[in-house]
């Protein structure tokens, strides 16, 4: 049966059931439409959460009711009716899987369509000798398969869905959840705190180098389902972890709200590398039906000499609002932000970073590559703040924009606030159009126009793409090409 039809039937069923109480009915797949304390109680009950978690959510919800949507971004955001969305949708409850073979073939086919690298598919299929990449698959808000848990366990790394972590590691979650992104940080983070559906929890103990790249694939499956992922990564003293997150979504008719929160807590001399390839459905050529992506990502470099590196390739979503940031509190801590943001057709992106230098000798690097095509608008917005007691801070910022065609926009909005005279801050920015010389040169060697554009754009984004782990970089390169199809000519 067609998935949409199936979902519609489920919804109808739930709508009927709603009247006589859904809160404790674990068989139900959807929370009813709309947002209320009951919705939050439903989500919490659905996940068998302890009382403290429900209280935390309710506190956030009450705070959210008093907040207002942000309006400072260079984005044209249609009014969102929060009462006309679903806040929880789960695939049918199934027992935990030992391997991917036991996974629903429908879901496996989706993985294939998403173009998950063959190596990872092998890993998932349990092929011997395949590279070790743990995939915690998040489907419609609930983790349905988790691999390599045993090996990670041996290293002492905790890699769980956030729901599991709330049940199994309550002390760690209590300690760190909201410690980097407080509930009231902003409208969307607060909403997420109230209704987050699932996500990932990672804890790397002192001195441990995580033995594999951790990766999570997200996908919105159910029509009209808001996605509220919550990710919490804690790297204890001297540890290292590299985390990959990639996502894509199928065609949709109605706008979908996506408000994720990612928190990273780095202790002394810990290093976290967080890579994202974001390919949410951008809408059709007129911008209809794309995802609204309002994401709060922040890292706290709490300990001395800690380091957090954000790398993102943003090609999807109708609207992107996202500023992966670093609070450089520990002395000598390092923050990095490498970003490629590509917009086409009617897409809008307002993305960048915040580097908050609190500790002495802290360093930050920002490399942002914006690519605009079609009638899209692409804004880099970045803050570099040096607090009075932060001695000898260094920052280097490079912002390059590439325009394809003459109907798109590229904007750069740097904010630099320096309260300590010993800081060295550098900012470079360029804007250029894709050159006809380059296009013709590449085409004269045998590349068709789309391949030539993809090649030149990939070259432009190279500095950022090379920060990605190999298999992710290949995927990202393809994505840039696919996202620009039909944008020139």
């Amino acid at each position, binding site marked *: 049966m067609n998935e949409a039809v199936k979902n519609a039937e489920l919804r109808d069923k739930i709508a009927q059931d709603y009247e006589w109480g859904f809160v404790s009915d674990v068989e139900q797949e959807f929370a009813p439409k709309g947002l209320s304390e009951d919705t939050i109680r439903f989500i919490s009950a659905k996940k068998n959460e302890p009382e403290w978690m429900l209280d935390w959510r309710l506190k956030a919800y009450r705070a959210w009711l008093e907040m207002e949507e942000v309006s400072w971004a260079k984005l044209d955001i249609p009014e969102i009716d929060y009462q006309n969305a679903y806040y929880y949708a789960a695939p049918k409850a199934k027992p935990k899987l030992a391997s991917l073979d036991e996974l629903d073939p429908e879901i496996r086919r989706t993985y294939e369509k998403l173009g998950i690298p063959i190596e990872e598919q092998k890993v998932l299929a349990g092929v011997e000798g395949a590279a070790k990449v743990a995939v915690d698959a998040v489907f419609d808000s609930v983790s349905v398969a988790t691999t390599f848990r045993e090996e990670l366990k041996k290293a002492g790394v905790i890699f769980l869905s956030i729901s599991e972590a709330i049940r199994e590691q309550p002390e760690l979650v209590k300690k760190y959840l909201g410690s980097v992104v407080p509930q009231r940080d902003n409208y969307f983070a607060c909403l997420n705190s109230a209704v987050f559906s699932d996500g990932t929890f990672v804890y790397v103990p002192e001195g441990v180098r995580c033995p594999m790249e951790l990766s999570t694939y997200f996908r919105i499956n159910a029509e009209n389902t808001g996605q509220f992922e919550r990710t919490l990564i804690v790297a204890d003293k001297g540890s290292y972890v590299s985390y990959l997150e990639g996502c894509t979504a199928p065609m949709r008719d109605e706008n979908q709200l996506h408000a994720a929160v990612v928190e990273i807590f780095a202790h002394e001399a810990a290093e976290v590398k967080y890579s994202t390839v974001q390919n949410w459905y951008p809408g059709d050529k007129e911008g209809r039906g794309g995802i609204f992506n309002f994401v709060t990502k922040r890292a706290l470099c709490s300990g001395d000499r800690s380091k957090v590196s954000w790398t993102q390739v943003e090609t999807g979503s109708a609207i992107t609002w996202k500023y992966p940031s670093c609070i450089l509190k520990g002395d000598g801590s390092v923050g990095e932000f490498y970003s490629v943001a590509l917009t086409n057709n009617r897409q809008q992106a307002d993305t960048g970073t915040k580097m908050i230098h609190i500790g002495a000798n802290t360093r930050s690097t920002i490399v942002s590559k914006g690519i605009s095509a079609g009638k899209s608008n692409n804004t880099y917005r970045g803050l570099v703040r040096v607090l009075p007691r932060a001695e000898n801070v260094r920052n280097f910022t490079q912002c390059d924009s590439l325009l394809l065609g003459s109907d798109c926009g590229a904007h750069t909005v740097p904010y630099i606030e320096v309260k300590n005279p010993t800081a060295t801050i550098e900012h470079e920015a360029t804007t250029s159009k894709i050159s006809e010389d380059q296009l013709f040169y590449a*085409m*004269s*060697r045998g*590349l068709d126009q789309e391949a030539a554009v993809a*090649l030149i754009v*990939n070259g*432009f984004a190279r500095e950022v793409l090379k920060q990605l782990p190999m298999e992710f970089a290949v995927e990202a390169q393809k994505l840039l090409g696919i996202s620009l199809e039909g944008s020139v000519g």
Partner: protein
Amino acid sequence: MLEITNLHATVADKPILNGVSLNVPAGEVHAIMGPNGSGKSTLAYVLAGRPGYEVSEGGAAFDGHDLLAMEPHERAAAGLFLGFQYPVEIPGISYLQFLRESLNSQRRARGEAELSAGEFIKLAREQAQLLDMDAEMLKRPVNVGFSGGEKKRAEMVQMGILAPKFAILDETDSGLDIDALRIVGDGINRIMRAPDKGVLLITHYERLLEHVRPDRVHVLQAGRITRSGDIDLARELESTGYAEAAA
């Protein structure tokens, strides 16, 4: 192999080519000489399909096919190569990646099997070596930070790798020192001197022709071929200049 018939072309509505007719049979190298602004580069661009170069009259056939009806990349796949007077920089993309994608794209279009990464690197190394170029340079971004001479030599390495049927070389000799000129000349002979291949060599100077020894030499002036001859014509031009040759 390449038949150009009464070709007229404009750039930004300005007529540049005013009826060029030229026939380069397989197995021959033809040189085109001429003063600045005579339309030499325009001829090369029109043949390679550069946007903005409008053909207003006449035509060009390549191996019996209507060359002007093809897209630039289709011309490349059909076996046409343009050596650029000013090779273009593509930051962030290595020569190896650029040429492997180009070659495999051509091969796909011709229904041939693509080269694997290993096969391609072997081929690229060989060709670099034959042109006395450090193969390590192929790891650098396309033409970025290359000297004028290095860029021209790299164009010849590209020609060696892509192995075209027909090459249009637009002032490949400019910017080369005497040693490089010999190496490039040898390269053209090695890669393109074959019974089933052809070359249209655009140059200002006679020096390269002493290495390559064209079968025919044509003089292009004001968008028309005004004289044709053998290499002696080139030598004559070198001593007398174009003004007298036209008279």
